[in-house]
């Protein structure tokens, strides 16, 4: 602690803590530790304990009951097993693993148990108990994905659109920018926060280095994105149970926003590390290993987590009758909320046919592939558009974007097919050459820097002029420069045009303006 602690502050805390001093006798259910080691404890007694219940050890550490056996109870520890001895008393809490969630969590960094770890004091405001494990909403309470979730990344918003309530996987090798895509998406929600229709974001760091988490928090703070974001951190140094439960904590926080009728976005970074820590715990609990030594229920682990991502029916009445609603939020339930999930999976040497990647690919509504060779050749974000898909996002695109993106997708598909020929350097006919040249310009347009999400109207404007071929003559090296100047001009002088684009309209007035301005400006670049 810093040196500048005021005495009255100390005495205030003392008074507050001491006032809760328990004086009445309480009957507790107890057991005793038989053996402890490797983060797993076997306990004798606790005959009425439930699976999934939290228990407390003598030194105040919490554990979670996972195995109920004939003569003992197997529990995982949420901390170091160092302070626990054989014969120690273990108490039941009679609480199924749950956390306290509230609006006061925004801007905070919490651990898997929902306790703040950023040193900014207790969570402010009212909190509600949300269970970590909760059944996903049933079919009746859901609605098709219809609203866009703007990621601010041109390649994604145009060709692999994500809708609110969708589960879109971000997959790729290490160092391909997976986290960057997710962070940019969170940062891009700032404009909605400023407009007063925030998309609440939850970033779950599971098994990451503490320095990486600190870096992410700093980046979010710099971008002013922490105001509407909660970070759940279970670092690599935390015990395995803390790590594999952290995505469930993220989901529980997201559900609080979802069920109170607000849109939320949760990033699970990353689920392959979560699977590894789950494997560790399962093996220690002597559950039989399966493929790649993962336990048999690793698919269910991910499917039940990702199923919680949903778009809830807009009707309040229907939403209120939703299954498995926690009692704490029953009277504040509203319809129309959504929980978008962006799980991240790290592959080894681009192998998507490994166990965990195939599992998660099959669970999610599409995937964004990031590739090392694209990253190294300067295409950043390194999204391989050819094999990335979004199964439901198309319905969620705004109309104007849908129109321009259709052409872009076609153009890029043709370009990829012909690109190989271009490498031979043989003489090509004019039509083929045009496709290749335009493809390269489009590719240049789709590049963007980290922490620089682009508003959707800007995306539409630049993609429109590029796919229409108005900037075919601009040299490749100057395309970025052109884009910057063009967007600056459009936002400065044609605010109404941009607003129309944002509203989803692409009428003649808009297209004419875009065309004239682009051709005019392109002329400057061609000489």
């Amino acid at each position, binding site marked *: 602690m810093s040196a500048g602690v005021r005495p009255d502050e100390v005495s205030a805390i003392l008074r507050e803590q001491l006032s809760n001093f328990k004086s009445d006798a309480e*009957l507790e259910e107890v057991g005793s530790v038989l053996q402890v080691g490797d983060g797993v404890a076997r306990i004798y007694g606790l005959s009425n304990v439930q699976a999934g219940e939290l228990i407390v050890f*003598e030194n*105040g550490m919490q554990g979670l009951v996972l195995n109920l056996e004939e*003569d003992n109870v197997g529990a995982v520890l949420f901390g170091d097993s160092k302070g626990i001895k054989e014969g120690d008393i273990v108490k039941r809490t009679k609480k199924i693993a749950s956390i306290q969630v509230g609006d006061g969590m925004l801007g905070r960094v919490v651990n898997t148990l929902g*306790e703040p770890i950023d040193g900014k004091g207790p969570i402010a405001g009212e909190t509600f108990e949300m269970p970590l494990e909760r059944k996903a909403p049933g079919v009746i309470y859901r609605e098709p994905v219809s609203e866009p979730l703007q990621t601010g990344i041109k390649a994604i918003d145009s060709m692999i659109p994500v809708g609110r309530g969708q589960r879109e996987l971000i997959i790729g090798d290490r160092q391909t920018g997976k986290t960057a895509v997710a962070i940019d998406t969170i940062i891009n929600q700032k404009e909605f926060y400023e407009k007063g229709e925030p998309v609440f974001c939850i970033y779950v760091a599971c098994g990451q280095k503490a320095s990486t988490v600190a870096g992410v928090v700093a980046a979010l703070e710099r971008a002013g994105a922490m105001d509407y974001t909660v970070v759940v951190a279970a670092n690599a140094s935390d015990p395995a149970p803390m790590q594999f439960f952290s995505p469930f904590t993220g989901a529980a926080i997201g559900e609080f926003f979802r069920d109170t009728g607000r849109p939320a976005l949760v990033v699970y970074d990353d689920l392959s590390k979560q699977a590894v820590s789950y494997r560790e715990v399962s093996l220690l609990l002597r559950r039989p290993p399966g493929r790649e030594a993962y336990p048999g229920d690793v698919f269910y682990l991910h499917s039940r987590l990702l199923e919680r991502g949903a778009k809830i029916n807009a009707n309040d009445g229907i939403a209120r009758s939703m299954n498995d609603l926690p009692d704490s939020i029953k009277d504040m339930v509203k319809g129309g909320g959504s929980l978008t999930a962006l799980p991240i999976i790290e592959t080894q040497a681009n192998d998507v046919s490994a166990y965990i990647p195939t599992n998660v690919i099959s669970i999610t509504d599409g995937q964004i592939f990031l590739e090392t060779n694209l990253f190294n050749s300067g295409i950043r974000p390194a999204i391989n558009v050819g094999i990335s898909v979004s199964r439901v996002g198309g319905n969620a695109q705004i109309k104007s974007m849908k129109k321009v993106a259709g052409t872009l997708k076609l153009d890029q598909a043709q370009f990829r097919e012909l690109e190989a020929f271009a490498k031979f350097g043989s003489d090509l006919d004019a039509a083929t050459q045009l496709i290749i040249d335009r493809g390269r310009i489009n590719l240049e347009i789709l590049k963007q820097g980290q922490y620089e999400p682009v508003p959707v109207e800007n995306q539409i404007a630049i993609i429109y002029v590029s796919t229409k071929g108005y900037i075919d003559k601009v040299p490749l090296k100057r395309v970025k420069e052109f884009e910057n100047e063009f967007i600056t001009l459009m936002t400065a002088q044609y605010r109404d045009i941009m607003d129309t684009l944002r509203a989803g309209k692409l009428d003649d007035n808009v297209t004419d303006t875009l065309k004239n301005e682009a051709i005019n400006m392109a002329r400057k670049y061609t000489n």
Partner: protein
Amino acid sequence: MSDFRVASRYAKSLISLAESQGMLEVVHEDMQLFSQICESNRDFTLMLKNPIINHHKKLSILKGIFENRVNTITMSFFEIITRKNRENVLVSIATVFHAQYNQFKGIEMAKVSTMFTLDEPLRDQFKKIIKEATGKHNVELAEEVDKELIGGYILKVEGQQVDESLKGKIKELKLKFLHNPYIKGF
């Protein structure tokens, strides 16, 4: 406690055998005697658990000690145990047998830890509380004097406890202070 499963099975069959022969009380007394000897004589327990000592030797030692002191059922039980090479669980069997006997007879086992030895009225008071709480009329109260409690008592009844000791309260307070949300944790 790792031999709990084996012990509970042996104890269960011993109870049902003794019960069918109408010798339950006698066998229970025998097993209590056995437990007592184990508790008072560490060498005896170690001998039972020692894998190097031959089973025949163990049986003859058991015979030497218990031959004329226990019932024939108990003695033949010892014989079976040695034949099955389970002498090492015999101590646990005696403990589990006692627990199962109590369950069978509807006796509640309770343990109370205090700073000083209980006097008769206090003891009766504890028994009355336990009877009321569990609804069983036979209460077997084990007492323990623990100077570390500072004050108050700890009462344990079948997997439940009431911790009214000062030591427990201070510990709780200590844990509360350990948890400080003003310290950065990552």
